[in-house]
């Protein structure tokens, strides 16, 4: 709660899978935190189950997953399914090296938005703020 009593937007960021490249996710983490959001980063090599558990425990509004190793089609749906099973309706966004051809399928399975390389971090901040504030409680 900030001084106005409004709940801060809570974001969980994670590297799911085996990839260790975390420059991008850490950059996004910094920008989100600097814009006043609560940011939790689960560190490298989280399993989908760990991410779901942390998201539920922390009662987050947004789950952001970073993928650079081509395993997004396997792992992103697992996180989303896990969140649904636990009844957490967090906004799920993806970032990283993700081929265009995969985006429609990701969006159909519950990913709200995919941010590709070169996206200005401020645009991610604006998107999250706009989407969460427009749909409180989703």
């Amino acid at each position, binding site marked *: 709660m900030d001084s106005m009593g409004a709940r801060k937007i809570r974001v969980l960021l994670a590297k799911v899978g*085996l990839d260790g*490249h975390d*420059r991008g996710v850490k950059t996004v983490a910094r920008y989100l935190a600097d814009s006043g959001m609560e940011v939790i*980063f689960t560190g*490298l090599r989280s399993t989908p189950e760990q991410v779901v558990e942390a998201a539920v425990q922390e009662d987050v509004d947004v789950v952001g997953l970073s993928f650079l190793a081509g395993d997004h089609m396997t*792992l992103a749906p697992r996180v989303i399914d896990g969140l649904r099973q636990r009844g957490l309706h967090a906004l799920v966004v993806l970032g990283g090296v993700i081929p265009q051809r995969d985006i429609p399928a990701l969006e159909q399975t519950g990913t709200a938005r995919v941010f590709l390389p070169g996206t200005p971090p401020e645009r991610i901040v604006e998107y999250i703020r706009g989407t969460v504030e427009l749909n409180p409680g989703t």
Partner: protein
Amino acid sequence: MPDLKADLKRWQETTLQRTLDRSPERKPAFTTDSGIPVKSLYTSLDAPSADYLESVGFPGEFPYTRGVYPSMYRGQLWTMRQYAGFGAAEETNRRFRYLLERGSTGLSIAFDLPTQLGLDSDDPLAEGAVGRVGVAVDTLADMETIFQGIPLDKVSTSMTINATAPILLAMYIAVGEKQGVAQAKLTGTTQNDILKEFIARGTYIFPPEPSLKLALDIVEYCFGQVPRWNTMNIAGYHIREAGADAIQELAFTLADAITYIEKARERGLDVDEFAPRLSYSLGCFRDLFEEVAKYRAARRLFARIMKERFGAKDPRSYLFRTFSGSCGSTLVSQQPLNNIVRVTMHALMGALGGHQAIHTACWDEGYAIPSESAAQIALRTQQILAYESGVANTIDPLAGSYYVESLTNEIETRAQAYLERIDAMGGMLKAIDSGFISREIQESSIRYQKQVDSGEKVIVGLNRFQEEEQAAGTMELFQVDPAVEARQRGTLSALRAGRDQNAVSSALAELDAVIGRNENVMPVVIRAVKAYATVGEISAVMRRAWGEYRSPAYI
């Protein structure tokens, strides 16, 4: 030179100032990509010739600023070593042969993440990652296939492998033996630089101490048995890619090297026994002169450290031999063909910088595993530079440039200051453990991003000169066969069914005992891979003995 100084002042105050009064410079201040201030003009005042012999000297002589070998590219061009690997062993074998047939002079294997992290292809944690960012290797059988028709006495092979390096090197030795090539004749490199995994790249398995023990097992074993092998490639490349600037990249690489050398000496190895087989890697980023100055400063600073700090006597211990490569983070997904031009600049930096081997990136690798045609262009870029441009005709051609010499001095001074800070903290292991190194890199990374956001750093096609985005969906992108994971699991289970299980079990039990006695694991790991024990099985023995490291998540 008092006259020059006075004359320079006169020029600044009259000729230059008159022009600036009419039309000011484009920016209030100019800096290198890493933020070192750049003056409008450099003269011999910035690089006094009186210092030449002591600080620049001759190629192949201390302090090696001009190059590690006396004849450099006039004797032998750099090795054109293209990083490749994907799918299962057959696909990678085909790509290697494709590159060799087109004049590639060295191989560089990319392994998939499960192989790098000691997991078999049928491990649940490997799902979705088999054969994705590199080739999947579970057993010696995969390695045999990768090198089918490629004689190991005719090619040198660099392996980007760290936490599981002893296992993959053992397989390479075993493949050589099967081909009739003695291990003493093998040439190549294991990256085997675990410290930068903790700092930058993330593919560590075990805690730092046992990780260092494993790395040094390779150093020690090769000194006796595989004398032409480069036991480590101590890499700044990944540190740069994680967001460090050029000075941090150099300083942290040298701090890692100092740590390995100290640890090897604690084991009782003499510095001149192992230091000649250590090799290094620095990235090729954006700023041509800064990068060349970085390589020159690296050679000089390293030679001084080896001589003064470690008392090395063998001149081969002084050589900062390097494999350099295009920094992938400088490539841009928007208007991707522009990357061919960026990669040409990378190759130019590498050649002007005097590297022993160069990797050039493929223009499409921001999207996918490179296509064959993109891989061919990347190789041809090096060949055009080597054979058409004249850049290889003389040694260290930028030496004597007042600017480059001055920048070389500046980078050396700044890197040296970092090394002193790290020493004051009690060394690199403490600096890593305290989070200092991660924070320094993170701060640089954010600073860089803010400069891109503001447009202060221009990236063509991204924050200036943008085009309406063409549909990347129309690009011909390479796609790893989606069936590879199932295929690799099938191969693995067939192999497990057909091998001598007793030989595997006894080798793994012996490995456990060797770890318990804190002996060198290499001989027993070679025995285990020859019995077709898997990467996952061998790693599991080590995991049980040492546990796994979980890094604190700094943001």
